Every structure is written in structure tokens, then in C-alpha cells.
């Protein structure tokens, strides 16, 4: 396992803070009715999984996920401004205001998008990976999967398909213990989800602590190396959603208060990384605070940008139904 440099860790810290601030601001904007779309699913709590995983691939590699997609877009390097503009349905949004929170994508970042049909993006991941092999590249695809999505037919067919053709997919289950209100053990006859790898002969990289960015990075790195040469791997990253299923889910902090408290107090990814930076790399609180301030500023600028952006118009409504 390679040593991870202080600079890299600091950058991961920056990303974590950026996501957390971005999501917190989205939450506020939703309550203030500046973000009006009914669906808004925040990545708060999941940051270490996304950051560790995407640190393990290169720019030429590919990422695809479900609707809980804001954080991954930011990690992939998409600018906060067009992301925030998309939340508000503005013309300047990454998806021109047509996709919304659940359908962020940035072709040039090889961020293939968020998808709102549970499981619907899994075969797309397989297809993108098929293209990588077809073109004789050694690019890989990281595909994030909710724990709830693992019980859908798409999961079965896509994972099996990936193994038959030895497609370079790193399947990562973001197991936050629940899909909407349903616990994994109520949704999965066998709730240790990575064990499903065996059903398809896929290499099983087991469970990883999804709140520890370094551990996630190392495990996914292993998966990426395998996938580039051999074929698909499955990883189960144990994480937690801090803000309920979506922003409209108002009862989660009552419903899951004790569990939430435990995760926030004992498994907070930002704290874990901050502690590492302080104890092993001599970083002090001032440095970390400076990063926070910087990210806050970026987020505020993105809000300004979005608020001042134009709405799409009647031409946009009918554009891109077909390629002309």
C-alpha cells in the first residue's frame, strides 16, 4: 500500500468540505424554495466513499451513479457553479436545466451522470465498459450502486453480464444501510451484499469502512488494478446518509436519531481525516479552517451564479429531443 502524501490528504479534505458545504447549502436553498424540484438527495455522510474511490482512477476513466450524484460530480472536478445552476433549473446548469439534481452529468469529465431509475444505470455502466474493451483501451468504469438497488433485476443482469465478457467495472455498493425507509435486512434475503459477487464469479473485494477515505482509496485502487487487466470487481462500502433519503424526507432524524448520532459522533469522515492530518502530518486547526472558508466561498459564489443565471426558454424545451 503506497504512502499517501500530505498534499493528497489535504486535497481530499478540501473535497470533503466542499461537498458538505455544497449539500448543506442545497438543503437551505430547498427550504427557502430557491431549489424547487421535488427530488434532492444529498451526499452528506458519503463523502469518504466517493472521494477515496474516485482518487483511485484517472481522468480517462469513467464514473456513473444514481440520483445521489452531487458529491461525485464535484469530486470529478465539475465546477460548483454549473452544478448549483442545475439545481435551480437554470440554462447555465451542467444539464442545461433539463436534468436537475438527479441528472447531473459532464461528458468532458467522464462523469456519465446521475440516473433516477433505481438500478437503471447499471447496464449503462456495463455498456460503457464494453466500449472501453471494444476500443482496446484499459480504461475502467466505476459504478456506484445503492444497497437498495442490489435487489433489482438490473443488478443481477448487469453484474452477470460484466463477468461473462470480463468488463472493466468496479461495482461499488454504497451501503448506507437503508433504501428510502427500508433496512437492508428487510430488503435482502442475505444482507452482506458483497457476497453476491460469488453468484457471478466476480472478484469479491468485500466490505470496506466507507467513512475512512484512505481505506476506501486503497481498496478501490486494488479493484481498479484488477479491473484494468482482468475484469469486474465488487466492493461494499459501509456508509451513512446524514440527511434522510431526500430533502423532503423530514422524519429521518427522528426515526433514526440514535443511529445517526452514532455515525456523526464516531464515524464522521471529515473528523477521521482531520485527525489523521493533525496527528500524522502536523496540520493544525488554522490550516483546516482556512480550507473550510475557501470552500464556503466557492459554494457561495456558485449560489450567486445560479441565482443570477437565466431560465431555459421555449427553444430549449424542444431542443435535443433528437440529434438533428
Amino acid at each position: 500500500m503506497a504512502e499517501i502524501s500530505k498534499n493528497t490528504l489535504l486535497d481530499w479534505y478540501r473535497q470533503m468540505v466542499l461537498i458538505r458545504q455544497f449539500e448543506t447549502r442545497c438543503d437551505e436553498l430547498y427550504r427557502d424554495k430557491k431549489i424547487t424540484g421535488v427530488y434532492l438527495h444529498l451526499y452528506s455522510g458519503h463523502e469518504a466513499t466517493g472521494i477515496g474511490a474516485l482518487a483511485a482512477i484517472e481522468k480517462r476513466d469513467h464514473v456513473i451513479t444514481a440520483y445521489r450524484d452531487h458529491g461525485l460530480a464535484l469530486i470529478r472536478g465539475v465546477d460548483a457553479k454549473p452544478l448549483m445552476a442545475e439545481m435551480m433549473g437554470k440554462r447555465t446548469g451542467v444539464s442545461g436545466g433539463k436534468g436537475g439534481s438527479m441528472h447531473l452529468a459532464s461528458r468532458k469529465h467522464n462523469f456519465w451522470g446521475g440516473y433516477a431509475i433505481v438500478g437503471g444505470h447499471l447496464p449503462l455502466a456495463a455498456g460503457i465498459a464494453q466500449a472501453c474493451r471494444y476500443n482496446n483501451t484499459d480504461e475502467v468504469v466505476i459504478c456506484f450502486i445503492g444497497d437498495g438497488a442490489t435487489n433489482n433485476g438490473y443488478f443481477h443482469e448487469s453484474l452477470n453480464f460484466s463477468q461473462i465478457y470480463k468488463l472493466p467495472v468496479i461495482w461499488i455498493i454504497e451501503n448506507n444501510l437503508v433504501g428510502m425507509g427500508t433496512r437492508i435486512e428487510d430488503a435482502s434475503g442475505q444482507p452482506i451484499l458483497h457476497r453476491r459477487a460469488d453468484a457471478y464469479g466476480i472478484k469479491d473485494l468485500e466490505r470496506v469502512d466507507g467513512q475512512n477515505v484512505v481505506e476506501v482509496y486503497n481498496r478501490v485502487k486494488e479493484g481498479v488494478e484488477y479491473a484494468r487487466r482482468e475484469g469486474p470487481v465488487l466492493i461494499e462500502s459501509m456508509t451513512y446518509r446524514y440527511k434522510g433519503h431526500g430533502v423532503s424526507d423530514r422524519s429521518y432524524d427522528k426515526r433514526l436519531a440514535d443511529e445517526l448520532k452514532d455515525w456523526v459522533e464516531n464515524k464522521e469522515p471529515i473528523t477521521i481525516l482531520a485527525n489523521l492530518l493533525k496527528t500524522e502530518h502536523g496540520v493544525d486547526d488554522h490550516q483546516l479552517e482556512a480550507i473550510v472558508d475557501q470552500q464556503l466561498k466557492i459554494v457561495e459564489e456558485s449560489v450567486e451564479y445560479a441565482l443570477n443565471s437565466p431560465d431555459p426558454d421555449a427553444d430549449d424545451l424542444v431542443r435535443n429531443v433528437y440529434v438533428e
Partner: protein
Amino acid sequence: MAEKNIPMREALRQALREEMLRDDRVYVMGEEVGQWQGTHRVTQGLLEEFGAKRVIDTPISEMVIGGAAVGAAMAGLRPVAEFMTINFAFLALDAMINHAAKIHYMFNGQFKVPLVFRAASGWGNQATATHSHTPEPIFAHFPGMYVACPATPRDAKGMLKASIRDENPVLFTESIALYSKPGPVPDSDEFVLPIGKSEIKREGKHVTLVTYARGVEWSLAAAQELSKQGVECEVIDMRWLRPLDMEAVFESFKKTNRCVVVEESLPLYSFGSEIAAQIQDQMFDYMDAPVKRVSAMDVPLPYAHDIELMALPNTQKVIDAVREVI
């Protein structure tokens, strides 16, 4: 009958609860119907009242939700299976069309499939392209399964009870935009509406507006506005896309000789197409003008609210269409 003013979601809940009390073969199954109290709160309280045997939370597995309901119905139960939204029912199309709708026929009547598929439909609050379908007409294309689309709390209750009691499979769609709207509902557990019967929601003599579900609201608003200008619209709520009560439409058309069809769905190969096609076929000699259609625009629904609203039908579009035929 005494009536109470309640929102549609509550009317639906009453229907479920009353039928579950009346017939212990009736049960509810779907994603988040129990502990979460239903995504749209229709099933609120049912888990507490009836327990996990009769209010079954499922995994996110639309194929088996659809197919298990078929099997259970064949075996004598009366499942009410919920698809959280009808968009996800696409994943159950095979279970619904190749199985629910065909089994009674294919095995020559040996099995009955008395189930209800409930599904929230439509939208209009920026749910985006994948979550904004109103595809009732495409389900109604196939024989073997009824399709119910209520427009008011009263109809919702009476039609859901009818659907649960009927021996045939029923796709029962509920317009999301209507869940919170209140309306008078008979306070009786024996209030059941007949399958396949439309209702005149407003009488008029100049133009017939043929519509269903959310379209009823736009049509009634347009009728009210037009009435001020001396144009009296008859608003027919079809209620069921299958069986389709064309007799009622023809009856009205004989009087008005003009028709506008109003639907939330996409325009092509749709509800409006069928109504217009039947009118011109059967009512040719009564036609004083072509049948006009008000539908959603032929585009995927976008996220941004301003253009989303442009794409959807509304009262003004209905008024404009009526102006074209008179």
C-alpha cells in the same frame, strides 16, 4: 348519503381500509407502503392497524411485485400492489401485460387474477423526464386488464373499491397532483362505483370536453371561464380508459356536435387519438368541427419549472382549443 370533505389520498386510504376490513383476502404490498406510511401517504396507518401480514413492505423489485401479485391473485388472494410511481411500472410491464392480463384467457378461465396495481401517475413539480409519465393509454392498449384513472376523491374511493372487488386485474392510477385536493366523499363503506362507467362532471350544450384524471380539473376550469363568455361545455370524465365508455361520449356529442379531448399524456398513439378516431367513425354525420386534442407536448419533460409548465396542458390551452371548434 352523508358526505365528508377529504383529500384524494384519504379517500383512497378509506377504500383500502374498508376493503381490508370487509375481506381478509385483501392485502397491500409495495415499496414503502408500511413503515414509511406510503410514499404518498395513501397507506398511512394501515401497517399499524392490519399488521405486517397484510401490509407488506417489499424490496425495490418491481418485477416480483408485479408477478407475485399475479400468483397470489391466482391462488385466491386479492392483492393491491403499489408501484411507487407508474414510471417504475415499466419494469413490471411483462408481469402486467403478459401475465396479469393474459392468464385468465390463456388458460381458458381456469384462473382468475383479481388484483389491483396502484400507481401514482403524472407530476409537474420538476420530477424530470424519467419520473413524469402518464402512460395510462399504453397500458390500456392491451386487452385483459382494466385501467382506472379517477379525478376526484369521491371517484377515487368508489373506483378503488370497485377495482378491489372485481374479479379482473385493474391498473389503478392516481394523479400525484390530485392527492392533496379535497372533495366530498360519501361516508359509507358500501359506496362503490361501477367499472367502466364515465360521469358527466358538468353539463353543457355547445362543446363536449372528453377527459380523465387531472384533465378534469383543467376542463372544468376552462368550462367555467368559457361559460362567462356564453359557451357551455359538457365535461365528461371518462374515469376508465378500459373499458372505455364511448356511449356516453356519443350521447353528448349528438347534442354538442363538437369535441375537445383533454389529457395529461403525450399526444401520439394516445387517449385523444382514440377518442377522436371513434367520434369521427361513429358520429361522422354529427360533426360540426374536427375533434381537437389538448395533450402534453411531444417532448420528454424537462426539470426547469418554467419550460416544464410550457410542456404541460393547462386551462388556457383547453380554452384555446374550444375556441377553435366553435
